């Protein structure tokens, strides 16, 4: 986007091994504030490991993670994290799930509820505020999960294949919905996906990774104009990017 060039997240030489497997070889990345970056690569390329290190769930063997000017290596509670599994708790309503982070750290205030409600209404969940997750479709559940992630008020969002389990129609809707939110709220997003179209459509930058050991093989700037629409998907420039990413993926896996 080029709005800001300040680095918000710096991954410095992070490496992680499990037993004798190098899950993630030494990796360094810098993300600018408000950017949308996708990680693509086959299973075992270390995407989820990298996410778990950034979120503080996993301790890296070497390296460090800096958010702004704070070192957040090995510490949790600094980023918004969302998985393919929506992980909504069935006993709380949509509003209750959105305010879960608040409930887990302190008393939920009227302000929290008001904000949750405003965001939910604004982004298409207004009719379902008091529904239990069990009564919602897969797409709606993922919307609630993203709202819960946003409610933590973190500037950095880690989205690990959030739309991976949705049908392609719903997935397209969700991608546009996500871009809308991202543009409105000026968050920095790292997005993991297997879907090359999805990665290019959403991102400013696509990072291609390869397995055994997991590492970065390419870093591609996607300068397609925004806002992106359905036409973007058939734009010749889009197809060029797609060809390039597919070539890199195929080369690295063979």
């Amino acid at each position, binding site marked *: 986007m080029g709005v800001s060039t300040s680095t918000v997240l710096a991954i410095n030489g992070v490496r992680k091994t499990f037993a004798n497997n190098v899950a993630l070889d030494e990796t360094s990345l810098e993300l600018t504030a408000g950017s949308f970056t996708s990680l693509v690569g086959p299973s075992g390329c270390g995407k989820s490991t990298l996410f778990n290190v950034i979120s503080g*769930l996993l301790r890296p063997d070497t390296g460090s993670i800096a958010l702004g000017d704070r070192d957040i290596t090995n510490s949790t509670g600094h980023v918004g994290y969302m998985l393919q599994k929506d992980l909504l708790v069935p006993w709380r309503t949509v509003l209750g799930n959105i305010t879960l*982070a608040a409930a887990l750290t302190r008393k939920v205030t009227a302000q929290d509820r008001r904000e949750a409600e405003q965001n939910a209404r604004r982004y298409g969940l207004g009719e379902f505020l*008091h*529904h239990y997750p069990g009564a919602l479709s897969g797409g709606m559940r993922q919307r609630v999960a993203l709202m819960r992630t946003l409610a933590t008020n973190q500037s950095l969002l880690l989205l690990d294949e959030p739309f991976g389990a949705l049908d392609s129609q719903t997935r397209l809707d969700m991608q546009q919905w996500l871009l809308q939110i991202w543009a409105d709220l000026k968050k920095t997003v790292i997005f993991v996906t297997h879907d090359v179209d999805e990665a290019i459509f959403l991102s400013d930058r696509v990072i291609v990774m390869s397995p055994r050991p997991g590492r970065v093989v390419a870093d591609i700037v996607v300068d397609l104009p925004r806002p992106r629409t359905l036409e973007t998907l058939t734009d010749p420039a889009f197809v060029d990017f797609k060809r390039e990413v597919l070539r890199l993926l195929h080369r690295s896996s063979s």
Partner: protein
Amino acid sequence: MTRGEGTELSALRRWRLVGALVLWSVTSLVVFVAAWQAVIAIFHPAPYVIPTPHDTYFAVTHNWSSIWPLAVGTFRETLYGFAAGAVLGFFLAVAMYKVRIFRSLSYPFIIASQAIPIIAIAPILVLVIGFNIYPTIIIVAWIVFFPVTINTLDGFLNLDADLLNLTRVLGARRWRRFWFVELPGTVTPLFSGLKIGAAYAVTGAIIGEQADSSGSSLFQYQFAANNSSRTDLVYGLTIVMMAIGLLWFVLIVGLDHLATPWKHRPTSRRWRDRGRTTSTPSLRNE
């Protein structure tokens, strides 16, 4: 977007479920009595071996004024014992979940506690504690706590690891996580344990009543009926005991239903969610 069509439909479905439950209960009762009657019609047993359902029914109704207070007494024993056992069982499970060393240490004792034949130690309990209600309460609690502890602990240990990781990422405080995620996530296995406990509670109470030979209790009344060869009354009292166990089971099932509204309702109906917001009323249930 919602599953399960509209809200009116789901209300209708709920009543259909209740109706089906009543229908099946009545049907089982009819089948039971018919089978009983058939055994008598085919084998012609002496009335002091197997009385007819008719005689059994009237043996109970004629002596109802004596039976009712004794049944209430047995219910009270199961109530106190069940409550004590459930609370003990639950807190034991929490402690075993939270403190790993305590889990390893206590597990063998908890299993061993159920290997003791309760019938054998009931007289000892009466000797130590005295001829009162307490030995019976202890026996009931002793039987009830076990399934509650085992089921609840299994529930805690099988919570979704990803969900627990998510609470860490969200910066959850330990006891808040317990209260808002771990505990509600264990409600279903907790109630499974309570249901098993409910079914066994009456057995425990009757063992206690047997040991407390001085008191007037449902068991002692049955014992006297047996000594006077009133087989119809013995059968009838057995059915009364069974009915107390069934009542407990139904109570727990009802409590489970109330405690887990998300399993059978599309929306919440807590008072604070009403009125406070202006969400589309057409989509709300009731």
